[in-house]
């Protein structure tokens, strides 16, 4: 695959386009720019440095798909900020891994085991930064980037998303916790919750704005609550053992390498923070936030307002990387997203995990039976035991508070997942399924959202919530495999399709390669050495 940098000093190659050359023939699944977009080309807004003639349109050619017109990069907001697309990753990422899986490992192996969590979350923060590189530079999703490199890659993710994420089993933890509080059967809560999510997203004028607001409040409550709880329960020595545990690199007790625990540990590392395809969906939230060149792409609207949807361009845009002013703005955007990755995402994920670990330790201190139940690995029984220990310590109100925490986490994950899945599938369908552009992106989004809800309700009422038992291992395999696959995709997309000045440096490339090796290596090692998929 050869991409070319129109801004470099070298002579133009065969893929290089100038305004005087028409774009090459496109692949069948792609149509040309809409008339409104591709009419008489104007100059290069944003000060393309070498503007030869006002009518000349300049393009960036990436892969074999439609070239990206050069447009101005918007000015970046201040790097220190509060609200942004990270809220989706936090909502999706802070789930059972942080509230149950890691506290469980700490109880069994001690706080030193947390160095693996540090590695897992830090790798995810780096992946997040690299995901944002392509999305902010082009306004395209990483799925589109994958298609530019090798279209079957994109279809792999399309199919994987359907196989892994249509099963409503993820609703069970939060809804079950709610059942403990109210007595309402969890299936009824889950069905009502899904219908509510569908109606609310349908009525929303701009889905992103609504969801960012709701998730911000939920995450805010979670962060404030867990901070206070940790402050009350813990001590500096608790914090210091947790912190030193995070740096106990290489600590791996013999039992951790046993067939019973190795797959669990690998799974816990893989699912530290956002797992599966959640990082890929982050690129779509960045676009709707208007980050970088995403500002040139219209936002997705609720189905009720779908007619107000502006025309979606048939591809993204690129900025003039030879213009120092544009590069200065690009650096501003990189600072902005770095703050997102390392302060908001990394910091909040760490904080919530520490708090839940402290909670688990406290409940185990109060009732040693909790440690036994947690060790046995029955999630619902373990959550019951933790809540029961709080209840026994004070009043039933406190068991309720614990379950409400779990319900809140479940609600966040469900809201984020429904939106993200629909967003990702709509994006791939709109750009790559022939004939799909008869519908607007917002309508496709609504179609996938309601399809997911309808299927989820049917399965909850009549089928296995986690998916058919015969394919559970396959789904777990696919979920982890997708993480290794998106690291490889990232390396290819960022190093092949982006102009040289904004490609990743050696350090991010090495880290992403390490992540790919880690996810895929551990997955296959677990499979071949122990005969089990990560869990």
């Amino acid at each position, binding site marked *: 695959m050869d991409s070319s940098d129109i801004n470099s000093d070298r002579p133009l190659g065969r893929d290089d386009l100038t305004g005087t050359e028409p774009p090459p023939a496109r692949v069948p699944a792609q149509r040309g720019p809409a008339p409104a977009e591709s009419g008489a080309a104007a100059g290069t807004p944003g000060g393309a440095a070498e503007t030869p003639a006002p009518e000349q349109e300049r393009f960036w050619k990436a892969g074999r798909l439609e070239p990206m017109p050069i447009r101005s990069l918007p000015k970046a907001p201040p790097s220190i900020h509060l609200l942004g697309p990270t809220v989706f990753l936090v909502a999706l990422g802070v789930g059972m891994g942080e509230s149950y899986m890691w506290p469980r490992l700490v109880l069994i192996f001690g706080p030193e085991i947390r160095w693996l969590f540090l590695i897992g979350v830090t790798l995810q923060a780096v992946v997040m930064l690299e995901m944002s590189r392509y999305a902010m530079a082009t306004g395209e999703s990483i799925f589109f980037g994958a298609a530019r490199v090798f279209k079957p890659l994109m279809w792999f993710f399309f199919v994987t998303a359907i196989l892994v994420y249509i099963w409503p089993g993820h609703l069970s933890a939060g809804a079950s916790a709610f059942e403990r509080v109210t007595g309402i059967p969890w299936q009824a809560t889950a069905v009502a919750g899904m219908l509510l999510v569908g109606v609310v997203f349908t009525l929303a004028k701009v889905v992103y704005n609504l969801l960012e607001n709701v998730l*911000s*409040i939920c995450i805010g409550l979670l962060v*404030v609550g867990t901070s206070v709880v940790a402050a009350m329960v813990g001590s500096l020595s608790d914090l210091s053992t947790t912190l030193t545990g995070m740096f106990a690199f290489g600590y791996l007790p013999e039992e951790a390498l046993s067939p019973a625990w190795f797959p669990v540990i690998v799974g816990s590392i893989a699912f530290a923070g956002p797992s599966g395809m959640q990082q890929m969906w982050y690129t779509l939230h960045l676009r709707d936030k*208007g980050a970088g060149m995403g500002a040139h792409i219209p936002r997705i609207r609720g189905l009720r307002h779908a007619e107000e949807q502006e025309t979606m361009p048939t591809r993204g845009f690129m900025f003039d990387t030879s213009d120092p002013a544009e590069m200065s703005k690009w650096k501003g955007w990189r600072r902005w997203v770095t703050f997102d990755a390392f302060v908001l995402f990394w910091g*909040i994920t760490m904080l919530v995990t520490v708090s839940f670990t402290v909670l688990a330790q406290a409940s185990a201190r109060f009732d040693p039976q909790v440690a036994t139940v947690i060790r046995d690995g029955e999630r619902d029984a373990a959550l019951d035991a933790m809540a029961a220990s709080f209840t026994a310590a004070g009043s039933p109100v406190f068991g309720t508070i614990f379950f409400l925490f779990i319900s809140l986490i479940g609600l966040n994950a469900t809201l984020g997942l429904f939106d993200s899945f629909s967003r990702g599938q709509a994006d791939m369908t709109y750009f790559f399924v022939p004939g799909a552009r008869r519908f607007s992106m917002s309508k496709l989004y609504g179609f996938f959202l309601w399809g997911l809800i309808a299927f989820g309700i049917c399965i909850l009422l009549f089928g296995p919530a986690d998916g058919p038992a015969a394919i559970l291992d396959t789904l777990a395999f696919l979920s982890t495999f997708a993480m290794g696959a998106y690291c490889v995709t990232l390396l290819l997309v960022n190093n092949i399709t982006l102009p040289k000045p904004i490609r990743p440096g050696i350090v991010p490339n090495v880290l992403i390669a390490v992540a790919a090796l880690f996810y895929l290596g551990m997955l296959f090692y677990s499979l071949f050495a122990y005969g089990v998929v990560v869990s």
Partner: protein
Amino acid sequence: MSAHAPSAGHVPAPAQYAEIAVPGAAIGLVAGVFAAGVAALAGLPGMQIATIATGLGIPLALLGAGYCVLLATGRFGVGAVGPVALYWLVGFPLARLVDEVAVAGVLGHDDVLRDPLLSFLAFQALLSIGFAIGFLWLHERLAPLWYYRIQRHNAAAADLMRRYIDQAAEMEQRRASAGRGRRRGRS
């Protein structure tokens, strides 16, 4: 008083600021409710749990209210993370200290703190960063709705609302300028 301070209103200035302080105080109180869960971990009776909950909830509510007033008087920028983090870096450990002292007083404990004072304060200060982010996160989502409701009779709230709108307009302008670039490119 900064340039942002209101000059007139239908209600006296102290009452205006008291009204403005409602969102911050409410968030502080809600945070204090979580302290009840922690009290349960200690296996204490209801009365003592209530003491612990209010011991933290009230200081946090007062500090939350203080943040709103400082915001309204222009000492803090709208949505600025740094000043809030510094504010709670001092305020959160103090609130926790008040809580511990109150609890020790009610229970008649001789030892107020489990850890040395400096260790205690350092631990609380470290956790305050998370609390500050959560607080601001909630405040930025909830407070503008409240200020919008009261701005008709509260000049300080109206002034604060204007600052929120200015900030939103600035963000929108940034997006619109990119949009104009897109339209220019099409025509």
